[in-house]
């Protein structure tokens, strides 16, 4: 199995989906000749031509809006938004058409499309290039939203998203893009949307994270075991909407304690929702309040200070100790 970065794994998934299904087509700013500003779509224009890899004018609203039309026609568009911050430009098309067209047409026009967008901080970028706003999509009826955490699940999730008959927001943690490599099998691999993964089993504390936050969470989990004797069960959420409530509830029913790590702003976030569900379904097992290690309700800071803003292993460890200290 070749070792790949997440960028390469995503490229592989796109390539194989395009190869096997000629309805799959890509569109976005700088994705063709330039291969994408992060190179996720590299070489695909050469291989599949201008009709299937469309360098578009600079207009996100158009990219999503026309992709919806293409999906109605029966194609499977996979538009890229260059940075998730610019999905705001397409918010109306996402909420009003991408999420609703199937419903509005009583199933006549299912919208099988995937909106890819790199999200999150940690790459020393300028304003609007570091947002994590998965909560917007989770709150929007009609969408699905998934977030991979490493090369292998990125590839499998992207295939699953493209194969899905409904619209999927595919958030790519750009801090992970080239951070590490993993074995990624040659043959197409998929995974079920809506399923979380227990990344590490444990009995003392359930830790939930996704995307780029899986790395500090995993590092913290290891340290907690090694240095503090705290046995963490780490869950990689993977699918934000639908969410794998069952896996979460099972874990917390076992551990009785839970810590959620996210980089998004805190209020009305995915972490809030997880707490709400655990409150409803695991109330009697909860030994301590569920804690959030989260981004703050402020504008993502300029890059000289972003490392302090983002959750890091130390902060996660401190929070975990707090949760464990509760009696």
């Amino acid at each position, binding site marked *: 199995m070749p070792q790949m970065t997440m960028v390469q794994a995503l490229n592989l998934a796109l390539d194989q989906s395009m190869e096997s299904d000629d309805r799959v*087509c890509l569109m976005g700013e700088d994705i063709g000749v330039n291969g994408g500003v992060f190179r996720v779509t590299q070489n695909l224009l050469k291989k599949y031509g201008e*009709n*299937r890899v*469309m360098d*578009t*004018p600079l*207009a996100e*609203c*158009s990219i*999503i*809006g*026309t*992709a*919806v*039309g*293409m*999906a*109605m*026609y*029966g*194609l499977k*568009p996979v538009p890229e938004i260059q940075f998730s911050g610019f999905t705001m430009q397409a918010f*109306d*098309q996402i909420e*009003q*058409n991408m999420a609703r*067209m*199937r*419903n*509005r*047409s*009583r*199933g*006549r*026009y*299912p919208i099988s499309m995937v909106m890819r967008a790199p999200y999150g901080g940690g790459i020393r970028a300028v304003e609007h290039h570091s947002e994590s706003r998965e909560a917007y999509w989770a709150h929007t*009826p*009609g969408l*699905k939203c998934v977030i991979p955490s490493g090369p292998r699940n990125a590839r499998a999730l992207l295939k699953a998203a493209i194969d899905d*008959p*409904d619209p999927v927001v595919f958030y790519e943690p750009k801090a992970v893009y080239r951070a590490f490599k993993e074995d990624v099998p040659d043959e197409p691999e998929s995974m079920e949307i*809506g399923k979380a993964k227990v990344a590490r089993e444990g009995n003392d504390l359930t830790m939930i994270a996704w995307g780029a936050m899986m790395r500090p969470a995993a590092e913290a989990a290891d340290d907690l075991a090694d240095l503090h004797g705290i046995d963490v069960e780490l869950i990689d959420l993977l699918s934000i909407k*639908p*969410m794998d*409530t*069952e896996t979460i509830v099972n874990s917390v029913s076992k551990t009785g304690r839970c810590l959620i790590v996210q980089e998004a702003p805190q209020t009305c976030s995915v972490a809030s929702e997880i707490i709400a569900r655990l409150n409803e379904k695991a109330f009697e097992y909860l030994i301590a309040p569920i804690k959030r290690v989260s981004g703050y309700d402020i504008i993502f800071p300029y890059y000289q200070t972003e490392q302090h803003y983002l959750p890091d292993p130390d902060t996660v460890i401190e929070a975990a100790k707090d949760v464990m200290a509760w009696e």
Partner: protein
Amino acid sequence: MPTKTASKRSSGTKQSAQRRVTEVVAPENERPMRKTIDLGDIEDLQILNEEGEVDEALDPNLSEDELKKIHRAMVMTRKFDIRMLAMQRQGEMGTFAPGLGQEATQIGQVYPLNAKDWFSPSYRSFGAQLWRGWTLDGLMLLWAGYYEGFEIPEGINDTPFSIVIGSHVLPATGLGMAAKIRGDKSVVVTNFGDGASSQGAVAEAFNFASVYKAPVIFVLENNGWAISIPAEKQAAVREFARRGAGFGIPSIRVDGNDILGMIVASQQAADHGRAGKGPYLVEAVTYRMSVHTTADDPKVYRKEDEVKAWEAKCPIRRFEIYLRNKGILDDADFERIGKECEAEILEAREKFRARAKAKPREVFDYLYTEMPPELKEQQEEYFRKLDRKGVE
């Protein structure tokens, strides 16, 4: 670069130049001639005028059968509109948007389409939808708040109409792009109002369609008003068709109350699209004779005089003069056709009444192809609520 005749180049001028820039720039009209870029022109079309006179050279000379079909559709549209208003006033219909007076614009724009072509309308599109095959009772259901009304008739490629102004125009453009990509000959007609022309999404659609040469016919229905905002306040240009030129789209301004003009313009636009030449913009100049919607009171913001003046431009009246003069139909026919349409509409109303049963248990359907477990749970809770209330 200015023309040589108007000014002289030199390598360096020696005059002293002490004046401030604000002074040296002469007022516009005193300036020497400069080179300019010609923006061209847009076509302005009328074939059948207010008096029912036809421009022979431009008459598409449709067959008698076609003309009759078109006439009947226009009458049906108007009768339907009137009946819907009556139903609304009687409490049997929800808020809806009458298309009174816009029958020619409506039917002309979809006339050149076949079933495989796409039609993506705005909400004020009874005429076009009926022409395309939407049923009278279906449209009634829809506007009466029953979700089933949105069921798209089999065999035609229509989209649900759009409630959010201008929001359907980009998807419609995507349909055209897809047709182009797949090498199909289908074209897309999408309509929207003078108000919608202010939406950025509509301008974006012009650009995408033009860049990708997508076979999209943008029908801008300039009916003079966007609720209470007159077209003069909506834009600083009188002719909305000018917009197309800035995006490289051939554009035409048509008398939207002239059914023959609308048909010829739309046909020309469709031919253009089918020939692979890209989009077309048709500005149909018409008038909203009725209320914006049944929740609106136009007396607050517009003068009766203005409406009166447009009565003289009625698209049906002038078309009937044409048909009468051509000897195709006479007054007795007109009366008969009116009655037949009425009867059909009343029949449809019965069907509507029979179908008008709320289906509260359906509201979770059609959202996802497969309902995710978390949603199923919510649905179960909702069903328990209905059970408790004794609702079917």
